[in-house]
């Protein structure tokens, strides 16, 4: 073989390699995401994806407070800079209904999530005819990087077995002489914090905000006897068993109380588990157990989703959409989900949540979370949801701090929610006021 032949051969090989890499590797994509506690796991998985595939992913990680406006601005223009945007379940409907996202099956008609992926009560789908997020007749619009619901965190060194009912929680509250200052801490700050946390109580007592919203009946049921029982219990637990002034306690304070060893138990979102066993952040390493949220003695275990959805904006090129789709498919594989969990993320694959990883002490939260995911429901899945959340979040907070009685708070909230539905032309009505 002559030098010239070798040179020509090498050149041809190099050229074909370059050409192949151009054809095979996907376009670079950019993901808009919030810096939540599980972000570290997501970032690690993105790095692994880049290493495994050679595809390039840029991340724009912003504080939660700025995420919504950035997402709105990104999708409203003729062309967008983000190929995947992360959305809270409180906002996702706005983006689905506004046709701002591309259905995943429009990019890859063969795509489906499979039965092992948590779909957060159908929040990953959109039924255009019914204008409702549901798997029934809906198309997949997004995937979830963290479906996110509550777990009951409890001190295994102070509580023998996790409470099954709210009565069990009240009993621990009356036990004195333990190391922890308080029995339970609840999220009471105005707005989303108390609305989200209280929803679990409300659902477990059989309460609801509206009668049958998925089927168009928006009769307000927020001042029903079931919701009243739930709120009475919530206030009792917060005031009699928890720290003073519960009306200003948000998730950050709850986590502080738990990791500082000042409280025996709390209902906190699953993502907070990562901090419990971190010796640099926690004084209760290895002492926290996890269970599904308690239920009323005569009720069911229920929970509420605070899910995150990642969708592909409609205003990006076909090539970028396909590249984003490649990432989504990778993210949902069991291998990636396992790596994600090990790196601090919250997997959405039940195969992983109930697989060998869940037997490890570090991942003792996985099985309860998988169980909780079966109990959880979505609430406020309509465009008026954000406004109604503000109403509920204020009135519940006022009841908690004693500015309004339980009846006043629920009756007032119901009337205000009714006004919102009337304004938006919904078929609605009101229950008789609570006496």
């Amino acid at each position, binding site marked *: 073989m002559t030098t010239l032949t070798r040179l020509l051969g090498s050149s041809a090989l190099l050229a074909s390699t370059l050409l192949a890499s151009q054809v095979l590797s996907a376009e670079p994509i950019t993901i808009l995401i919030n810096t939540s506690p599980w972000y570290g796991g997501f970032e690690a998985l993105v790095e692994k994806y880049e290493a495994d595939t050679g595809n390039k992913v840029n991340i724009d990680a912003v504080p939660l407070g700025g995420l919504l406006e950035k997402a709105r601005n990104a999708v409203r223009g003729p062309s967008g800079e983000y190929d995947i945007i992360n959305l809270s379940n409180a906002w996702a409907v706005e983006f689905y209904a506004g046709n701002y996202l591309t259905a995943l099956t429009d990019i890859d008609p063969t795509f489906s999530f499979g039965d092992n992926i948590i779909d957060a009560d159908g929040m990953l789908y959109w039924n255009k005819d019914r204008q409702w997020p549901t798997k029934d007749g809906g198309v997949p619009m997004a995937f979830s990087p963290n479906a996110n619901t509550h777990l009951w965190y409890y001190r295994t060194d102070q509580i023998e077995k996790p409470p099954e009912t709210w009565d069990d929680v009240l009993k621990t509250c009356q036990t004195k002489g333990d190391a922890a200052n308080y029995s339970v801490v609840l999220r009471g700050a105005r707005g989303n914090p108390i609305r989200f946390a209280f929803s679990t109580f409300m659902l477990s007592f059989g309460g609801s905000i509206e009668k049958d919203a998925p089927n168009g009946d928006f009769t307000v049921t927020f001042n029903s006897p079931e919701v009243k029982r739930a709120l009475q219990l919530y206030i009792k637990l917060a005031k009699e068993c928890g720290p003073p002034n519960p*009306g*200003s306690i948000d998730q950050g304070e709850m986590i502080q109380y738990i990791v500082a060893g000042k409280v025996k138990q709390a209902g906190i979102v699953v993502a907070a588990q990562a901090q419990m066993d971190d010796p640099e952040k926690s004084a209760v390493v290895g002492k926290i157990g996890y269970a599904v949220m308690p239920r009323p003695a005569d009720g069911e275990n229920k929970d509420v989703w605070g899910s995150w959805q990642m969708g592909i904006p409609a205003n990006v090129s076909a090539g970028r959409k396909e590249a984003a789709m490649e990432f989504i498919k990778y993210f949902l594989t069991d291998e990636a989900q396992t790596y994600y969990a090990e790196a601090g993320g919250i997997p959405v694959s039940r195969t992983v949540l109930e697989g060998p990883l869940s037997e490890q002490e570090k991942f003792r939260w996985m099985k309860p979370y998988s169980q909780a995911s079966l109990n959880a429901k979505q609430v406020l899945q309509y465009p008026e949801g954000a406004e109604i959340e503000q109403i509920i979040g204020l009135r519940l907070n006022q009841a908690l701090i004693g500015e309004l009685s339980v009846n006043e708070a629920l009756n007032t909230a119901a009337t205000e929610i009714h006004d919102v539905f009337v304004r938006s032309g919904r078929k609605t009505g009101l229950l008789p006021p609570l006496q």
Partner: protein
Amino acid sequence: MATILVSKRPVTDSAPPQSVVSSRRTRLLDLFDRHFRLITIAPAALLILSLTVAPVIELVRMAGARISFTNDGVQRTAALAENISRLANDWIYWRALLNTLAFVVTSTFAELVLGLMLALAAQRMTRGKGVVRTLMLMPILIPPVAIGNMWRLMYNPEFGIIAYVVDQIAGVRLDMLGSTSTALLAVIIVDVWHWTPFMFLILLAGLEGLPEEVIQASHVDGASSLQRLRFVVLPMLWPAIAIAFVFRSIGAFKVFDQIYLLTSGGPGVSTEVLSLYVFKVFFQSNELGYGALLSLVTIAIVCGYLAVFRIAQRRKGTL
């Protein structure tokens, strides 16, 4: 020379005679001279007007509508009466207005008094005045986000230094942000800590600019320290005080970040202020039309407040 140049131009039947050209030019020059200031200012004025008036006009348009976004574009539905009716019955907005006024008056007054006291003390210093001035700048330089988090931690009833100190002294666990009776006071304290240095710097500059001979004369006339302050220093310092007061009032009206971080308007509505509420309506509830109306009313309230202050100052003859 000019005549020769003009005469060299080709003369046509339609060309005006030279005397007409000359008089037209003179008139143009006269016009330019007479309106020189207007003409030179006009481009900048037009630019400023387009940057300020145009958004307000858009805000007015939005205020009369219900607005929704879809991929097909912005959809506006006329809803002026509906928005006005909502505003009239929106008790949270009116409560936010009261909270804002309480916040503005209390914090600005406290900052003024403290700033003046510090400025008077610093003026007498013969050494280290520069160091004091630099140190006093620190709170202004700290980002509001850091201030919010720092004070939130300090106020924490379990872990905070304030609660700890009060507990040691009085045996009470103080939770200033968690109680409706103390939450507004708590955020006012943070604002006073943050902005007193601003007052201090303006008033110190004002004090240092006062004519020394007048103060010396009052000293020779036997005025006591208090009399000198009351009858000599404060009247001469009044313009600086007024400017500082107006600037801080405007800033206090716009307070947002520290309340957002410390209380988000709670507990209940005890710390709800105008900016925060408008933000919630605009960005959290996504009600752009109603949010625009709230913004307009808020702008009108701030303008009204400043107008009242200006009238008062004119009567006093200091502005």
